[in-house]
């Protein structure tokens, strides 16, 4: 398994980290949203289609504790987005050979 885990921790409304990641990540990679990056998982946001249109290219994950902290547990997330806890975060890091953090 040689795919890469991309980690996004910036809001897509404020920074272009996710844009750049979606442009440069190789299909088959995984993308994990953490901290302010979890705002990218909001299902009713204007940019939601940008992610849902790439579901076949990437596996998308979002960190549950960061979703809950920001009050997003009561809002629909983008369909196909998998919520993971901290243990799931560790598993993802362990399962991928390389991790890239888009700071």
């Amino acid at each position, binding site marked *: 398994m040689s795919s890469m885990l991309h980690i996004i921790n910036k809001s897509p409304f404020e920074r272009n980290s996710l844009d750049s990641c979606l442009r440069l990540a190789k299909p088959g990679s995984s993308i994990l949203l953490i901290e302010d990056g979890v705002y990218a998982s909001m299902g009713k946001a204007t940019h939601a289609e940008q992610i849902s249109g790439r579901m076949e290219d990437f596996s998308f994950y979002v960190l549950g504790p960061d979703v809950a*902290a920001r009050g997003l547990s009561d809002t629909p997330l983008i369909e196909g987005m998998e919520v993971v806890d901290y243990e799931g975060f560790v598993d993802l890091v362990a399962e991928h050979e390389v991790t890239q953090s888009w700071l």
Partner: protein
Amino acid sequence: MEEWEEAGPEVVKRFMYVNRRAPYGTIYALECLEVVLVAAAFDQDVSVVFLDDGVCQLKKNQDTTGIGMKNYSKTYGALDDYDVEKIYVEKESLDARGLTADDLVIPVEVVAAEELREIMTQQDVVISS
């Protein structure tokens, strides 16, 4: 009480605090909230604005137990106790995130950018974070 205190401030200025950052990821949102609450003690004409990711500060149902940080979203409710009643949220910012006023922890005045522009123009001091 000293005479000058009873008289109140001689000059009342219009202060606007503009919140544009999401909570928790950075310290800006909490710092601005604290500044507003301190400044409210000085009997000035205070407005607080939330736009861009700043609207996320007011999202209901925040639960920070999983990230080990203090949930300060309930503190926005104290703005009313401090007589800070002019709280504006930009409609365009809510729309972009698929949010409405019902998603927010306190009652606010939702204003379109066009209207917010006029309110901003009327201020003496604008502090942005």
